[in-house]
């Protein structure tokens, strides 16, 4: 799957489905389960229909709204890159400490972290 066509063309995978939605919506819009299933159905169909390596197929879904002018602006939206785990919520961090201990939950890397619950 991709919503960044030029980047995927450059990486040149064997097969890809292009969904022309804003970044952060590679597999569809939030809370639109029917559309999400249809996107997945059409994307997976390409496993069977693409026969030439390097093929990228555009999926026929249209984002409702004019989002591209803003996406083309050269603005850096990245947040600072901290080298410690960045939890969505403090409660998540507490659950990770319970599961993995203070040291691991707060250390930069936890390779192959397997949920233990």
């Amino acid at each position, binding site marked *: 799957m991709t919503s960044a066509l030029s*980047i995927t063309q450059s990486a040149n995978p064997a097969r890809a489905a292009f969904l022309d939605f804003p970044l*952060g919506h590679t597999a569809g819009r939030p809370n639109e389960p029917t559309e*999400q299933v249809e996107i997945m159905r059409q994307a997976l169909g390409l496993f*069977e229909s693409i026969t030439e390596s390097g093929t990228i197929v555009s999926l026929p879904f249209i984002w409702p709204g004019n989002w591209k002018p803003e996406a083309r602006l050269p603005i850096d939206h990245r947040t600072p890159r901290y080298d410690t785990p960045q939890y969505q919520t403090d409660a998540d961090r507490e659950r990770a400490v319970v599961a993995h201990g203070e040291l691991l939950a707060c250390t930069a890397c936890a390779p192959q972290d397997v949920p233990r619950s």
Partner: protein
Amino acid sequence: MDTLSHTPNDPVDYIAVTHETYDKLGYGSYRWANEPDPVALSPLPKPLADCKLALIASGGIYAVGQVAFNHKDDLSFRRIPTTVATEDLRTSHFAYDMTAARQDPNVVLPLAPLRQLVADGELGSLTEHALTFMGGIYSQRKLREQLIPEIVANVQEMGADIALLVPV
């Protein structure tokens, strides 16, 4: 960098936008992965309805109870049970707008729609775990030498026939 020579409905050229953004910041040009030739296409080994699929996503998704990703070239990955409840999924990333992903993680980790296709008989099954990582890693060498081999080994150990990559 010319990002103006497009019609309004053309796909956004994020490589050009990134070059322009970095130029404005005084950074050197970012070198995107560039492969002149695609890898060989592997035909499906069996009908899709019989295939086991491994879902791999780079949107910084973790499950409640797991250690979140750091944002400084984190080369670790998480194994998330494909039976996980959507409300137990979280995201941690520095480079994309996570508003939608936090409303409904299926937009970056489409487990619910894939489970529906399995239930409908259109897809055979899902591997025991989906594999997730934090895609903002700026060293392609470290990806190739460390993270990708570990992910490939995990996908093979889980007996996947096909893999679906969902970047952001």
